[in-house]
Every structure is written in C-alpha cells, then in structure tokens.
C-alpha cells in the first residue's frame, strides 16, 4: 500500500528561519511542500521518512534566502495493481460505488465490477447483490458507510498543472458557456478503479464467519 521514494529537491529557507536548526527547517519545508499532494505518475505523498543528504547551501544575488539541495525519502501511498484494500462505501450512483479510505477518497468501483448478479435500487440509490443460496435469493445491499474489501484493478493519473488562459485564436470560436463549463470540471489527479467481483470481496459482513 505504501512505498518509499527517494527524491532530490531544492529547499528555500527564508532569512527569518536562519536562527533555527537547518535540519528542522528543511523537514518542515519538505512536509509543507509535499504532504497530502499527488505527484504525477507517482502517488499520494504522505510524510517525510528521512533525510539522506544535505548538500551545500547557496545564496543567490538579489534574494536573501538560502537554497539547499536535499536528498530525502518520502512515504508515498500507491496501492499495487491486484492489491486488496479495505475501505468504506462513500456514495453510490447508477455508474458504480465510490469508496473512501479516510485519507484518500478517489476510489471508484464501476457497476461492471460488482458481484454478479446484481441490481440497482432507484429509490434508495443502492446496489444489491442477489445472492443465490440454491433455495432462495438473498438481497444483500451495498449500504453507505459499510466497510468493504476490494481489489485494485487499475489506476489513472491526470496531470492537473495549470495550462494557462486560452490562446487568442481560440477565443473567437469559444462561446462564454463552454469556457465556464471548463472551469467547473474538477479533474481528479489520482484515481483508483477497483473490483469486488470475486469470492471474499465486497462488504466485510457478507463474509464474516
């Protein structure tokens, strides 16, 4: 679920932090920069693990802060493909169910990856697994807030770095409404697609002995 990544970055220490211990300041700055952020094609940064090497600090002309290159290791959350995870059902719609681990929310299980046979209850907006025991069919609801075990099937990274304003030639073609629509699209930088289409997967209390 978690892995360690070795990275090198330049830490800018502002002059008013010079009196503090350099190690503490560097730790704080690295955590400030990376914690709870997604790095493209890497994963969600959780916390600094350790600092391996601090190189010489330099001061650039016209700027009072010191710039220090640091080699460090950071804990990254990135489940492997086919790994099993346990989360909570956050919400469900016709397309599928959304699962959340409290520190990471963008996990989606599309309806195609649910235990078959299933049906969708429109009134309660919940999925139901129609479990056939041979004599009778039990309706097992996938309720909100329930703990659920799922397998990671795939992941997707989207680069959300800002692309700047539209070019002048495009402005004439774009209508006001389409520009406004683009602003509303919130792209998810890191999304995990899961599946519960296997014995043992799904709500924990389905398989509790």
């Amino acid at each position, binding site marked *: 679920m978690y*892995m360690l*990544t*070795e990275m090198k970055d330049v830490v800018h220490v502002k002059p008013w932090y010079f009196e503090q211990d350099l190690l503490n300041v560097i730790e704080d700055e690295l955590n400030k920069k990376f914690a*709870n952020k997604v790095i493209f094609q890497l994963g969600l940064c*959780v*916390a600094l693990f350790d600092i391996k090497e601090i190189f010489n600090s330099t001061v650039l002309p016209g700027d009072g802060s010191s710039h220090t290159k640091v080699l460090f290791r950071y*804990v990254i959350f990135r489940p492997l493909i086919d*790994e099993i995870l346990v989360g909570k059902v956050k919400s469900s719609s016709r397309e599928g169910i959304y699962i959340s681990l409290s520190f990471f929310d963008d996990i989606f299980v599309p309806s195609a990856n649910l235990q078959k046979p299933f049906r969708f209850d429109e009134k309660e907006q919940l999925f139901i697994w129609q479990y056939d025991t041979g004599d009778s069919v039990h309706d097992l609801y996938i309720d909100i807030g329930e703990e659920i075990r799922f397998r990671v099937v795939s992941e997707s990274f989207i680069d959300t770095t800002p692309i700047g304003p539209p070019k002048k030639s495009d402005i004439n073609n774009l209508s006001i409404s389409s520009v406004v629509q683009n602003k509303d699209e919130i792209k998810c930088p890191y999304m995990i697609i899961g599946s519960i289409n296997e014995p043992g997967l799904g709500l924990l209390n389905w398989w509790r002995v």
Partner: protein
Amino acid sequence: MEIVNKNAALLSNFEVFTLLKETKEKSAQKLIKKKNLDPNNSNFSTNVDKHLPTVVYESLKYLEKTPCVKQSAETVNNFLTQLDEKFKEYNLTKVEKLQLLNHRPSSAVELQCLIEDSEERFTIEQMDNLLEFVHLFDGKTFFTIFNQRLKFNCT
C-alpha cells in the same frame, strides 16, 4: 524536483503507522516550543500548514482499524522470519507476505483473495496450515502454539 529512486522500498502498514505517530509527536512538540518562546505572538497561526496534520490524522484514523496497531517491530520480524522458515516451499512472493502481514486474514476466503492462484499452487491442507499460522500468530513462536495443540490432542 527529481525522482532518484521511484520504488526504493515497500513499507508495511506498521512502519507507516509508527512513522506517523512520531511525526505527530514532533509537530506537537514544535508547537509547544513555539508557544513557550513567544506566547504573545499574534502572527502565530498564519504560517501553520494544514496539509501534513490532515494527512497524518486521516491516515492514523484509517490505520488504527487495521491489524498493524497490535504489531511491534519484534512481532513483525518474528512473523516474517517464521513465515520464511516454516513455509519455505510455498514460495510466497514479497508482496504476498506483505499483504499477509497487513491484513492477517482470519478465513480461507480472505486468504484466497490475497494469494494469487492459490487453488493451483497449494492444497487445501497447506492453505489451512498457512491460515492457522497467520491468524494465530501473536508474537510468540509457532512452535509454542503447535505444542499447545499437541497437549489438547493428548489429554
């Protein structure tokens, strides 16, 4: 920013849990120090970063519900060395051992999910042995548990 080594190591939930507890301790200590040095500072809260405390709090909240809470460095070490010794012929991959450590499955169905192609690689008896070891392991040696079972069978 440069990535030197994308996957330097795989971490178990227990290691991350320990690290996060230490990080939380350190932040609390720093806060106390700051307050002691400058109790009247009105700018105190402007430079407080919210990202690290958020991710630490949420991750701890999640990990507290997993089996890693009851683990210690010693038990993790014992678990892995004994898994290597007792079940050498099973040829479990590193990822499978890590998942067994993180999840500690209590039923055969769970074990089947975690281990790939378990029906083809192991017999039902082998699966039962593995399940018993993983589920009952509590830091003591497997030998002790095995001995206890013998005693029950004899009496």
